[in-house]
C-alpha cells in the first residue's frame, strides 16, 4: 500500500474511527440489526473499524489471509446481513476521504490521492463479496443436498408391496429423482404393487400430475403396478377441474384402502383372527 496514504490514515486513525462509528450507528435503526444488544453492536463496530484501518498496511497477498476475513466469516455465520458489511465499507471510504482531505492541506484536489483510497477500499470490497457469496453458495448447495436426501424413500410394507410417501412441492428436478428412487426400489424390493401416497403434496397442478403419471407409466414398464393414494377432496377437485386424465391408473382416497387393494391384486387379504 502507498506509504503516504498509510501514514495519513494511521495518523488520523482516531478521527476516522469516530466519524465512522457515528455514521454506522445511524444505520442500525433502519435495519434488522435491532435485536442485537447495544454492547455487542458497539464492540463489533469497533473491531470492524480497527481491522479496516490496519488493512492499510498490508499487501494484497497478506489481505487474503487477514483477520478481516475471519472477522467477516464470523459475522456471516451468526447471520449479520451483507448490508452491514457493504454499508460499513462505504462509510469507511467516506470517512477516510473526508477526514484526510480536511486535515491535510497538501492533499487537496489531489486526484491521485483519492484514487489510492478507492483502490484500497475496492480491493477489500471485492475480497469480502467473494468471501460472502462463496459462503452463501455453499449454504444453498448444502440445502439442496438436504432436500435431495429428503426425497422420497420407497418403503416395503408387505412382501411385494411398497409405499412411496411424497412430501412437499414437486419440481422437475425432484420428480426425476423420485422416479429413479421409485424404479430402483421396485427392482430392489421386487415390488409388484407400489402405492404412491400424495397426502403430503400441497398442490397438484398439471405439471405435478404429469410427473406422477410418467412415474406410474415407468413403474408399469419395469413390471409393477402403481396405485395413487391419499387423494384429498380439494386435490380431486383440482385434478378434475384442470381436465387431467388419471383414468388409466387406479386411485384410492387413503393409504389404508390402497393397501387393501394392493393385497387383493397380489391375491392376499387381511383376516381377523377368531378367538
Amino acid at each position, binding site marked *: 500500500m502507498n506509504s503516504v496514504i498509510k501514514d495519513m490514515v494511521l495518523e488520523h486513525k482516531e478521527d476516522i474511527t469516530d466519524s465512522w462509528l457515528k455514521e454506522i450507528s445511524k444505520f442500525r435503526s433502519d435495519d434488522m440489526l435491532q435485536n442485537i444488544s447495544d454492547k455487542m453492536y458497539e464492540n463489533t463496530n469497533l473491531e470492524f473499524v480497527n481491522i479496516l484501518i490496519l488493512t492499510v498496511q498490508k499487501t494484497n497477498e497478506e489481505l487474503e489471509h487477514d483477520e478481516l476475513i475471519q472477522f467477516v466469516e464470523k459475522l456471516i455465520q451468526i447471520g449479520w446481513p451483507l448490508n452491514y458489511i457493504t454499508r460499513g465499507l462505504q462509510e469507511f471510504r467516506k470517512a477516510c476521504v473526508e477526514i484526510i482531505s480536511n486535515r491535510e492541506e497538501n492533499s487537496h484536489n489531489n486526484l491521485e490521492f483519492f484514487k489510492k483510497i478507492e483502490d484500497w477500499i475496492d480491493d477489500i470490497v471485492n475480497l469480502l463479496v467473494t468471501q460472502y457469496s462463496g459462503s452463501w453458495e455453499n449454504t444453498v448447495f448444502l440445502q439442496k443436498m438436504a432436500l435431495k436426501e429428503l426425497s422420497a424413500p420407497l418403503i416395503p410394507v408387505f412382501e411385494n408391496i411398497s409405499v412411496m410417501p411424497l412430501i412437499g412441492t414437486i419440481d422437475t428436478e425432484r420428480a426425476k429423482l423420485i422416479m429413479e428412487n421409485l*424404479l430402483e426400489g*421396485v*427392482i430392489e424390493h*421386487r*415390488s409388484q404393487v407400489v402405492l404412491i401416497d400424495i397426502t403430503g403434496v400441497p398442490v397438484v397442478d398439471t405439471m405435478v400430475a404429469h410427473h406422477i403419471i410418467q412415474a406410474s407409466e*415407468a413403474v408399469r*414398464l*419395469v*413390471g409393477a403396478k402403481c396405485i395413487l393414494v391419499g387423494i384429498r377432496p380439494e386435490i380431486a377437485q383440482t385434478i378434475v377441474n384442470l381436465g387431467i386424465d388419471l383414468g388409466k391408473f387406479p386411485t384410492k382416497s387413503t393409504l389404508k384402502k390402497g393397501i387393501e387393494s394392493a393385497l387383493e391384486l397380489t391375491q392376499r387379504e387381511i383376516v381377523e383372527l377368531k378367538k
Partner: protein
Amino acid sequence: MRIPILKLHDYLLISVQVELDDQTALQFQEDVLEKIHEEGSRGVVIDLTSVDMIDSFIAKVLGDVVDMSNLMGARVVLTGIQPAVAITLIDMGIVLDDVPTALDLEQGLDRLQLELED
C-alpha cells in the same frame, strides 16, 4: 446374430443377452412368430434384463412382436425392463400401452398364467 428361443411346455422363453442392432431385432421378430407357429405356443416371455437401451425403433419392433403374437393367439409378457430404460422410454413418449410387463422371468410366467386364465 440370432437370439435363442427356448420352449417350455406351452410357452416360449426368450432372454435377450446381446445389444440389439436393427437386423438382429427384425430377425428376432421373424423367429418368434415362426416358433409360435411351429410349436403352437400360447404364451411368450421376453426378458430384457440385460438390455441397456431401447430406442424408438427397437420399441416399435417389440410392440409389433406383441401385437403380431396376439394375432397368432399367443400372449406376450415383457420382463426385466431396467429403470434407466423405462425412464428413457417415458421421456421419449413411448408408453408401450397394451404390453403386459413383469419384474422378472418368474413373475412373468405367473403373469402369463393369469392372463391365460382370464
